């Protein structure tokens, strides 16, 4: 695994779109070639080298390439955009679309990531050690095909509209979550270790939501079934089991209606 380190030297006056900062775009390039890759500030096109110091050559393939992003990239969008393999480590906080449309590899943001991180994620792993913004692991506007696979871990809190139109994969949030979780989902699983506000699992067709903390208002479309014992990441606990959204349509398998499941720790 070859490591390319890019360090912010000239922060943009506005915001920077760095969709070329991904193992796929770097693969097979020398530091000099990488510095020539395009980045965009508003309607102007510049080079990565104009804003960043670039050190180290990339590996032959994305899988053999690791990117370390240093310096203040709070105003940089699209880091890890569409990455399919390899690794991206952002040492600070970053802006919109971190790891958006990623299909593989691993991305770590040591600070916070703003909205639309892991949009329409298909595979790989995204770890946000700080807080995540809104629409984490959600579908792009109008698309009914949201997160299909992969794993997202948020060590801090997450915003609203987490996992909208989720179809598969897993999202784990160690902290608290704002309104709207897995709206319209037809699969996948979300684990919330902290508290969550209202509007959870609205219009959910299929999928699983597990809540360790409080939930201020339960959607009327959720019906209590029973208490169950669950083991999540090695921790055993008793949960109240709800099914829903009973206002939504649901598939049938062998005459059995398949509901979404919501588990709330007692």
């Amino acid at each position, binding site marked *: 695994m070859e490591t390319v380190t890019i360090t912010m030297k000239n922060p943009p006056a506005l915001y920077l779109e760095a969709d070329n900062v991904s193992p796929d775009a770097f693969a097979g390039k020398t530091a000099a070639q990488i510095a020539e890759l395009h980045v965009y500030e508003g309607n*102007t096109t510049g080079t990565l080298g104009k804003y960043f110091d670039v050190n180290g050559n990339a590996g032959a393939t994305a899988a053999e390439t690791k990117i370390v992003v240093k310096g203040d990239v709070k105003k940089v969008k699209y880091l890890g955009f569409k990455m399919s393999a390899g690794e991206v480590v952002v040492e600070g906080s970053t802006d919109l679309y971190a790891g958006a449309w990623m299909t593989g590899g691993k991305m770590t943001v040591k600070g916070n990531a703003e909205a639309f991180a892991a949009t329409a994620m298909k595979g790989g792993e995204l770890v946000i050690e700080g807080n995540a913004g809104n629409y984490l692991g959600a579908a792009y506007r109008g698309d009914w095909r949201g997160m299909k696979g992969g794993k997202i871990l948020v060590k801090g809190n997450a915003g609203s509209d987490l996992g909208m139109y989720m179809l598969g994969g897993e999202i784990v949030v160690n902290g608290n979550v704002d309104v709207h979780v897995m709206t319209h989902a037809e699969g996948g699983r979300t684990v919330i270790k902290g508290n969550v506000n209202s509007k959870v699992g609205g219009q959910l067709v299929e999928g699983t939501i597990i809540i360790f903390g409080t939930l201020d208002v339960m959607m009327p479309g959720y019906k209590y079934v029973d208490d169950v014992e669950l083991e999540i990441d090695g921790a055993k606990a008793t949960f109240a089991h709800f099914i829903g959204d009973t*206002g939504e349509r649901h598939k049938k398998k062998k005459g059995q209606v398949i509901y979404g499941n919501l588990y709330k720790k007692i």
Partner: protein
Amino acid sequence: MTKTVTDVICPFCGTLCDDLEVVVSDDGKQLLEVYNACVIGTEKFLHSQSKDRVTRPRLHQPDGTWKEISYDDAVEYTAQMLAKAKKPLMYGWSSTNCEAQSVGNEIAEMARACCDNTAAVCHGTTLIAVQDIGIPSCTLGEIKNRADRIIFWGCNPAHAHPRHMSRYSIFPRGFFTGKGQMSRKMVVVDPRVTDTAKMADVHLQIEQGRDYELLNALRVALNNEWLPDVVAGIPKEKIREVADMMKSGRFGIIFFGMGVTQSLSKNHNIDEAIALTKHLNEFTKFSIMPMRGHYNVTGSGEVFAWQFGFPYSVDLTRGFARYNPGDTSSVDLLIRGELDAMFTIGSDPGAHFPISAVKHIANLPSVCIDPHLTPTSGVSKLHVPVAFNGVETGGNCYRMDNVPIDCRKVVEPPEGMLTDEQFLIKVRDRLKQLKGAA
């Protein structure tokens, strides 16, 4: 001698009434009387005649005074600002005609700007919901001719769309609704006992911000599933009663407004309301329609869509169109500090954006094109007054149900004043030169 202009279109709200009659002086220079319009529409026509009206472009001076300049100087200032900007926002468009919007899009394409209309703070979240789940709707004539179940959810037409109920939704006697109001059941959902709610057969005084839950509960009721005793402050018996009332109609309609688009859950409120409408079509015929505000905000969305592919919040900075409210939407762009120039036309963000966003406008190079003095013109560097569209110039507009209606010119603008379109064409041509030179 005077003459009367008939079939005049009212350029105020999305109801786009087209039956006004306006009396003008024989020379067509003075507007004397307005018939058939609501108080707001009447005021709009009459105010165009006010003597204290600003008729020439003005540059804001540091001491707060304004320096009158020529339209040509205003064109130069605007073109230069757009040519220099890395990320300009061209915002508004909802109070001008589609022809001007079209020229504006050419400018935006050359300037590689962000473009947005007032849906941003009005029905933008409706558009997001429509993109997520679709929208079964109809034209307003269908309501007049067929509808026997009328639901006003989070909207107050008695105040915001004064002639809506008399022209389309409650009182008219249509083809299959010969008894007019008698043939209709009216439900209003609002946290206040609004003047609209006072007319309703049923008023659900909902707990503010819980529309998503109540809409969900109605769908649960349609599925005959278990319900909590109270949802959003409404007892479950009432919820089941209203669900049955909706099901039992022949043709129903949900009209909704800012009450749902601007409250917590926003697009999700509309999303669930549309899901409810779709759900009701398994039992009877049901439609849903946003109560669009500005008289041509709908047209702006249409023109954006057929030219760029998206109805609002379009970002052209990369040379091609992109769209994602939250990133490309005006209020977020301003509050996040993403812009370096502001161009406003046919709207008043200074009055209708959160003050934290307006503060950013005040700190940017800015042009405001508006017949009125507004908070936006008050914080802009350049104010360009123009003719009143729909009064002093015509052009195509789209009603809240997307029906296109060609506005009529009823009087001449004051001597030497330009229309939106005329000013924009000059800016476009100048910008072409500047870009060509660059």
